[in-house]
């Protein structure tokens, strides 16, 4: 009898616990549903972020492991909760950055990206999932952040940062993080931060390398102090051309989060006059001590010539995107379409198909009959490749039995490098190799995949 009473009591207690847990879960869900995220298509004024007087019990539990750090403590945590951070770019750097800032309890996060989620983003842009493809990155990132910490105020901006909106936007935030992927945006963000007096925590990554500096911070330099002249656009490699191992921007984005948190909590950053470089191949960090801000700097100097935002795409000679630009170097009769090439293939017309992509890309996919000689080998006349080319052309000439100019068709991924290769080969024709007729295949293998062979891989 007493056994049974005890058993029932224990059971009842358990059920009561379940009920409490269910009620909490319901309250939490209702709370997060109440704040359905709205996507901002333009910059609007925000209400000032209110400082908390003290931490709630829930705050104390959630942040307990970092509250224990003397470097942070309660005051540091309260400082975080009243700081707003604008994340420019929700890609490989912006995703881990936003994730750690939200987890640590930053007050407000502006998440800006003009782009939508694509399958080729997911290896590094770790807040987005398969189901978010084609969704605005800003919204996808904000939803992921909300699931992690619903107390962080998230403002997703689906817009391109421009000279028209950058100042109005940046003025509303305490700290700016540059997680962008192109040169014009880097100059725009820099100038807007200088003009509005905000610290700029800037990182970048490509292939197996990363860089980080905090600009415009405590007398340190701005981006223009270091790089007064933008690079010629043809010397800039972006992630969609050069590739990047996902974990490299992951590490740099985390590093950015660290510096933002140090500034926001009141400890201060130690990267204000330092360029930190990460070499993923050697697993090594190095830092270079920089000069203070430069009196002669065009934007942060003593007599600045840049006193308002300018046209950064014109200044840099490139578009504010990392998407591949389309070159137009050749005349119409120097180019054929993928459809033209398909009929050349079908009629078995003798020709040489030259694929000028780097070997690593040829390994991903190629047309079976192509000869691979990378553009750089042509440009720098790499002897074994030039010899290979000479042999292939003279074989073709013999096969054609006549004193005609054998046709060479040049292909690459998108139809940019193939045009450069045609220009190089026209110079070689008749001297370094037999006289040839050389044309490029417009749109390259990606056009082939889209229009001719849907089973051909795209990358």
């Amino acid at each position, binding site marked *: 009898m007493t056994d049974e009473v005890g058993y029932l009591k224990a059971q009842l207690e358990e059920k009561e616990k379940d009920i409490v847990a269910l009620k909490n879960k319901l309250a939490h869900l209702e709370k997060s549903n109440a704040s359905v995220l709205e996507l901002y298509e333009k910059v609007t004024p925000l209400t000032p972020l209110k400082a908390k007087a003290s931490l709630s019990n829930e705050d104390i539990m959630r942040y307990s492991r970092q509250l224990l750090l003397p470097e942070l403590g309660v005051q540091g945590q309260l400082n975080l909760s009243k700081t707003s951070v604008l994340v420019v770019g929700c890609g490989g750097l912006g995703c881990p950055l936003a994730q750690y800032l939200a987890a640590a309890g930053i007050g407000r996060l502006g998440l800006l990206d003009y782009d939508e989620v694509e399958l080729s983003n997911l290896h590094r842009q770790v807040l987005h999932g398969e189901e978010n493809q084609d969704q605005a990155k800003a919204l996808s990132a904000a939803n992921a952040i909300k699931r992690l910490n619903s107390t962080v105020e998230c403002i997703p901006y689906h817009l391109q940062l421009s000279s028209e909106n950058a100042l109005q936007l940046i003025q509303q935030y305490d700290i700016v993080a*540059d997680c962008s*992927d192109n040169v014009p945006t880097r100059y725009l963000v820099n100038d807007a931060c200088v003009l509005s007096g905000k610290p700029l925590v800037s990182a970048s990554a490509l292939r197996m390398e990363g860089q980080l500096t905090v600009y415009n911070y405590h007398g340190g330099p701005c981006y223009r102090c270091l*790089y007064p*002249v933008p690079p010629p656009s043809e010397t*800039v490699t972006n992630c969609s051309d050069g590739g990047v191992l996902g974990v490299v921007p992951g590490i740099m984005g985390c590093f950015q989060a660290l510096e933002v948190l140090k500034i926001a909590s009141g400890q201060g950053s130690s990267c204000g006059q330092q*360029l930190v470089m990460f070499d993923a191949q050697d697993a090594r960090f190095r830092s*270079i001590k920089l000069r203070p801000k430069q009196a002669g700097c065009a934007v942060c100097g003593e007599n600045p010539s840049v006193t308002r935002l300018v046209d950064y795409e014109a200044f840099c000679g490139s578009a504010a995107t990392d998407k591949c630009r389309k070159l137009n170097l050749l005349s119409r009769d120097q180019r054929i379409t993928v459809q033209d090439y398909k009929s050349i293939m079908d009629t078995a017309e003798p020709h040489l198909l030259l694929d000028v992509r780097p070997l690593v890309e040829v390994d991903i996919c190629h047309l079976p009959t192509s000869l691979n000689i990378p553009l750089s080998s042509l440009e720098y006349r790499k002897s074994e490749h030039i010899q290979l080319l000479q042999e292939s052309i003279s074989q073709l000439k013999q096969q054609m039995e006549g004193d005609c100019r054998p046709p060479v068709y040049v292909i690459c991924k998108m139809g940019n490098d193939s045009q450069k290769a045609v220009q190089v080969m026209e110079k070689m024709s008749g001297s370094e190799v037999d006289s040839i007729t050389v044309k490029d295949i417009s749109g390259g293998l990606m056009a082939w995949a889209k229009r001719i062979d849907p089973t051909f891989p795209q990358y």
Partner: protein
Amino acid sequence: MTAQVTVLYFAKSAELSGLKEEELVAVPTPISSQGLWSLLLQRHPRLCVLQHQVVLAVRQQYVAIGDELVALGDGDEVAVVPPLSGG
């Protein structure tokens, strides 16, 4: 006087020089930072596209490319660091 220094090439400069690191056995010292840069350009003419976009560092310290004299010692590290813009 000459010094033996290690030159480290980062980002685009590694691609253009085809090297991540090289030893230069007899670099005159003291040398102007412009002189040092010209010496690297002589070895790797393709670096000239980086002319105005590069951070040059000696012993982990930024050096503006110009008339400033740099004293080099054996084992010193010279770094060539063009900016990365991807993200």
